């Protein structure tokens, strides 16, 4: 029997006992819907998590440090490349070289120093860090009060919420998370901070350590080839960040942020300067570490490998991201299993319906065989009926699952809004899930038709026709 005939007969047979077949198909739909709902929840949550994490800049960043850096000498994780003693220093040409690696968006030096900031004549000691303008897209600056730096050289700062609290003399209360950033920011935006810092200066022509530094700023190290000058800079507060853009840095995280180019131009004395003292005569700055932003997380590994080959230590949080992905895979499997349980019930429903159909259509099967239907024709007819129910149930099920998802998404967002969180889209039905669900439903239905179809095909026509 040809396919169009098969389909036609199957559909008319399904229409004959419309109630029973509809109920069976609804059973399949519910099964598929629960599967789709569970999986799209899993996928949606995964997408939400990776979207959030991606914006945080954690997963596309590689931190590069020199192997000369003693901190890294006992890590022992990577011993390839030159030994620490003769490895290269992390200077400006190296930074440019890294920046020209494929897939690298930018490589910027990590400039951070602890210094004193005066606000309304009160000194506050804190860690200051430089940010490239690309950090604007960072998750943490999404909810910034005020604005980001107007330019790379603007004498402006963005401060972190906790520092804002300190400036205003408010004690941070760890019990209550929900400090209103807007209220904190209002009295601070546009105000001035005075930063006092130690500037490193190239030595004058004379090799002697001249007394040209202001008192207190002179490091006066024997044989030092540069001098340190104390400076002051007036900065305008333009933004207060709610979230912590440097949460990954732990205790060394900064609470005040400067534009990168401005920070570079200041030549602030850095901890590494002491270690690199022997070569500090050079005009070129030497960086303790360089942050490399990669186009996408999948590019992190090759970039890391390339930098390691250059003779530097690298660190990225990709391993952490892998375990997060693994967690979601496991979650998907579990959600899928729960979704499949309903489909298993539907499977039994199909078997039941078709076995009932055989009993009911015993005579009809006998007639068809008597007038020339082969075993294969009968078998295929039952398969077609099972398959048709499967496809129909699959399509309805996907629609149902999608609708359930929309409703839950809507409901949750109403709840989130009441709790004054931004709305989130944690429900995703990708096209491949739609195709997969319908196909899966079809295959499950065919599998359910296996036994009934075989039984119908084996029916003895003489016996079947004798039944009156």
């Amino acid at each position, binding site marked *: 029997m040809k396919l169009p*005939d098969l389909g036609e007969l199957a559909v008319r047979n399904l229409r004959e006992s419309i109630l029973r077949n509809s109920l069976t198909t609804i059973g399949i739909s519910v099964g598929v819907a629960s599967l789709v709902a569970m999986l799209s929840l899993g996928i949606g949550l995964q997408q939400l998590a990776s979207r959030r994490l991606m914006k945080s800049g954690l997963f596309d960043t590689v931190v590069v440090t020199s192997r000369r850096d003693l901190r890294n000498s006992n890590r022992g994780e990577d011993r390839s490349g030159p030994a620490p003693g003769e490895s290269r220093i992390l200077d400006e040409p190296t930074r440019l070289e890294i920046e020209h690696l494929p897939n690298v968006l930018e490589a910027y030096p990590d400039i951070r120093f602890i210094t004193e900031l005066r606000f309304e004549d009160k000194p506050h000691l804190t860690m200051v860090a430089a940010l490239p303008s690309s950090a604007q897209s960072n998750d943490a600056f999404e909810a910034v009060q005020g604005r980001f730096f107007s330019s790379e050289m603007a004498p402006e700062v963005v401060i972190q919420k906790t520092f804002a609290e300190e400036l205003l003399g408010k004690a941070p209360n760890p019990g209550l998370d929900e400090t209103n950033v807007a209220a904190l920011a209002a009295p601070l935006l546009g105000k001035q901070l005075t930063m006092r810092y130690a500037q490193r200066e190239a030595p004058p022509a004379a090799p002697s350590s001249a007394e040209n530094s202001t008192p207190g700023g002179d490091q006066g190290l024997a044989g030092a080839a540069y001098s340190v000058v104390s400076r002051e800079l007036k900065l305008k507060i333009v933004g207060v960040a709610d979230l912590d853009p440097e949460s990954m840095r732990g205790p060394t995280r900064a609470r005040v942020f400067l534009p990168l180019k401005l920070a570079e131009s200041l030549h602030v004395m850095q901890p590494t300067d002491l270690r690199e003292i022997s070569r500090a005569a050079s005009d070129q700055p030497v960086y303790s570490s360089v942050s490399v932003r990669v186009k996408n997380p999948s590019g992190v590994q090759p970039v890391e490998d390339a930098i390691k080959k250059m003779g530097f230590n690298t660190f990225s949080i990709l391993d952490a991201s892998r375990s997060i992905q693994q967690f979601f895979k496991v979650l998907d499997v579990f959600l899928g299993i729960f979704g499949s349980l309903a489909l298993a019930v539907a499977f039994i429903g199909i078997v039941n319906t078709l076995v009932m159909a055989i009993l009911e259509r015993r005579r009809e099967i006998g007639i068809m065989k*008597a007038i*020339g239907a*082969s075993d294969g024709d009968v078998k295929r007819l039952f398969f077609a009926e099972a398959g048709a129910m499967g496809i129909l149930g699959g399509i309805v099920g996907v629609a149902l699952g999608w609708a359930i998802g929309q409703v839950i998404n809507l409901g949750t967002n109403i709840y989130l809004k009441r709790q004054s969180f931004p709305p989130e889209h944690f429900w995703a039905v990708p096209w491949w899930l739609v195709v997969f669900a319908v196909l899966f439903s079809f295959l499950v239905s065919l599998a359910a038709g296996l036994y009934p179809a075989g039984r119908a095909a084996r029916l003895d026509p*003489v016996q079947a026709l004798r039944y009156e």
Partner: protein
Amino acid sequence: MGENVIRAVDGVSLQVGCGEFVALLGSSGSGKSSVLNLIAGLDRPTSGSVVVHDRDLAKLSREDLSRYRLHTVGMVFQSFNLIASMTLAENVELPMRFAEVERGERDSLVHEALARVGLQDRMNHRPSELSGGEQQRAALARALINRPQLLLADEPTGNLDSRTGTEIMNMVREFNQQLGMTVVMVTHERALAERYAQRLVFLTDGKLVSDEANLIVGEGATEQGRL
């Protein structure tokens, strides 16, 4: 228990020539229907052979047997055996679906077959809306749709009154004479068999008891025609 085999048909040797009209007679349980089922390829003999057109049905695969039923045999039954959920046209079309006849050709063939049995106006009715005689005519149209050479009839008039029975039998004879079909008919009505068949075969307890030419064939029909 295994030894207690019921022999529905035992040692029957029967040869039917092309174009013959043979009646199988016997009381119920005589094995006449079993013989018909063997010829139809619905059943297989436990031993012996059923040879049709030089092919032994006993040795055909299930697949080949169904193809034989589809193309070589047309069958009509006492209880008509039309599929209740299908219209007459669909019932008649069904064997062509199994035979994979092109869709475009089917409609005209269905129409032609139903016109031959005088049911062209009832094409889109379901069997339950028709009289017994009409249903049996539709069954005849279905039996002929794939142009088989062999027409097997199992008590074709058993559920019909004598007038419609005669109508059906006249059609069967027409197919036998005009289309040259070989007809094997099972009946327990000796009068009916004598009126139409050329040969009468009697069975009792699965054994063939007599096989004789029907000398008065034709006369009965003319008599009946006058009624």
